[in-house]
């Protein structure tokens, strides 16, 4: 066959196994001899909330009027043991992200935005900054394996305490902060030398296992006079057992972070190949709570890839009490905005794909400590953007809830949902649309 024959055309065929990202990664590994580290959450396609749909109103089920007929969105956390449970106006909170991984203006913006709509923010690996406490009307304080920044006065200043066992991006991994982000201030807060690459513990220093966690929680309550709700956060691994054990260890709230959950920095293989999808984690966790008679008594907060009011509504319908956003909150602040496209190009990426948050060169001034860059983020404007986004999440969730006949978003239930794929049906425990079939469960129960 002549290669000049105009009939012949051979568009290049990309391999689905050795696709261009895989080939690039092998080249990178060969050049550097070290694993790839990045931020953001799992990027690969996974069964997620998009594979579920709400059924909506029909002849048998009547909707509520928008605006005039109330659809409640409040949620109270910590009713099990805390003397001072906290009430959020909306069922969306801001997930734990450290000062260190984020800039000071970013933390301030998160606080302003969350407070404007009556919800909470969470500290991260590194402790509580005074600005954070000042700008967040409700602040959850993390107790992490590293204990960077941990001290009793901060514990007492918090509105709730979150003992972190793990996070979705890296269940079993510790924190990671590279030298370029360990500024003077960060170094001082963490008692580390400036500019070094922080190594972090993956287990807590003074307890291992739920039986000893119970004793640790008791200590934290003693130090804070049993006032504050204690959350236990786990990455989605064995959610049925982990939830039951968190309850037995004495948690007021369980926070469950699916593999789509973001991180400031960790190994790429951890993000993409460890932990289970958020969608697969919720029903087992709720089942554990129900079997212990603790559903709604120990509250469940779900995170990992929450992007819209539809995601919020679906998580609540599957049994969560609230959701948490991390990546979406940063995007709302301005992360990955096309406004900075020229700069993204210089970083050899493009707006929407930027995930090298560990490098501390974020053009948006969010995941960086560089004063030149952080100057670009106006905490008041960014806070307003976050408040807007949180409001939209709430309104969207209410719209869906009303359309399904609910006067409170907590009355959303699994029976309001159907699945579009076999995987989503099996994971969420809801039937395939138009059928009464759930894989593994046969016909409708």
């Amino acid at each position, binding site marked *: 066959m002549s290669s000049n024959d105009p009939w012949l055309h051979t568009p290049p065929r990309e391999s689905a196994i050795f696709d261009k990202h895989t080939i690039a990664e092998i080249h990178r590994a060969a050049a550097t001899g070290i694993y790839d580290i990045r931020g953001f959450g799992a990027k690969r396609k996974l069964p997620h909330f998009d594979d579920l749909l709400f059924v909506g109103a029909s002849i048998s089920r009547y909707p509520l009027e928008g605006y005039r007929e109330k659809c409640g969105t409040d949620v109270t956390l910590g009713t099990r043991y805390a003397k001072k449970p906290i009430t959020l106006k909306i069922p969306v909170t801001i997930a734990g992200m450290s000062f260190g991984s984020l800039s000071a203006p970013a933390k301030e913006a998160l606080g302003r935005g969350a407070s404007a709509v009556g919800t909470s923010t969470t500290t991260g690996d590194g402790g509580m900054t005074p600005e954070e406490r000042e700008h967040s009307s409700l602040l959850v304080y993390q107790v992490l394996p590293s204990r960077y920044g941990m001290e009793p006065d901060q514990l007492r200043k918090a509105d709730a305490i979150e003992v972190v066992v793990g996070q979705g991006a890296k269940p079993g991994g510790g924190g990671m902060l590279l030298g370029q982000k360990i500024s003077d201030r960060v170094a001082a807060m963490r008692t580390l030398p400036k500019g070094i690459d922080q*190594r972090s513990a993956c287990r807590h220093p003074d307890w291992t296992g739920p039986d000893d966690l119970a004793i640790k929680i008791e200590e934290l309550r003693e130090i804070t006079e049993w006032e504050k709700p204690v959350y236990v956060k786990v990455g989605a691994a064995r959610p049925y057992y982990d939830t039951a054990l968190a309850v037995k260890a004495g948690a007021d709230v369980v926070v469950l972070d699916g593999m789509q959950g973001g991180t400031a920095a960790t190994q790429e293989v951890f993000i993409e190949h460890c932990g289970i999808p958020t969608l697969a984690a919720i029903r087992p966790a709720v089942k554990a709570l129900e079997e212990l008679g603790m559903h709604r008594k120990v509250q469940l907060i779900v995170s990992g890839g929450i992007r819209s009011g539809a995601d919020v509504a679906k998580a609540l319908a599957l049994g969560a009490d609230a959701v948490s956003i991390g990546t979406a909150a940063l995007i709302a602040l301005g992360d990955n905005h096309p406004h900075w496209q020229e700069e993204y190009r210089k970083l050899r990426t493009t707006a929407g794909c930027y995930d090298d948050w560990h490098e501390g060169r974020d053009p948006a001034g969010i995941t960086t400590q560089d004063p030149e860059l952080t100057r670009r983020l106006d905490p008041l404007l960014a806070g307003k953007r976050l408040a807007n986004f949180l409001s939209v999440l709430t309104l969207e969730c209410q719209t869906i809830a009303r359309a399904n006949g609910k006067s409170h978003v907590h009355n959303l239930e699994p029976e309001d949902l159907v699945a579009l794929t076999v995987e989503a049906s099996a994971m969420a425990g809801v039937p395939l649309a138009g059928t009464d079939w759930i894989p593994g469960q046969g016909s409708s129960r």
Partner: protein
Amino acid sequence: MAHQPLAAGPAGEPIRNTTLDLAHMSVREVNRLLHAASQGDFLIKNPRGLHAIVAGLDGELNVSIDGHVGYYCAGMNKRASININGNAGTGVAENIMSGLVHVKGDVSQSAGATGCGGLLIIDGNASARCGISMRGLDIVVKGSVGHMSAFMAQAGNLVVLGDAGDALGDSIYEARLYLRGKVKSLGSDCVMKDMREEHKASLRNLLDAAGIGGAVDVSEFRRYGSARSLYNFHISNLGSY
């Protein structure tokens, strides 16, 4: 449970020199009282291995505990002086900010974990992970310490008159270790360092603070600390991570 009748002071605080009996009071009641006090001397009896006894104190208090305590005794202590006349369980003085904790007996693992300041004196032996992730605390152990002691220790001083177990100072940052006895093995990036005059002086101060300065010769000690080769990720160090 019958309460100890306690007279209250003008500010509603318990009168000094109070005895609190955990056989008749709960840990919660004892802690609540002591959290409300800004000064005073207290004797706590019958701890019987209970947990979180005197955790979270903040004040110029002097507390003595007669007996063995459970986990997290004196956790997150600020300013108070606490004497434990017995053994202590896991995490004694964990995250201590300041003040003094003195254990007359032995301690379980993770003694002084993540401690930021103050002084922890252990008359007996410490078990595994003594001083893990310490961040400025000084610890003086008159006996020996177990494996993984000073793991990821960031700042502060650990003085051990006896021996150290496996993996001493694994992944250590800037904390200083002074050891008189034998070390079973050193952890990743932990190396022996010179004992110069300033280190001997510092060690002397630590031993004085622990009340044994006169009885111990600083030149019998060796100093250990970070080789600092793991401070920046490097592929050639992968075996050490």
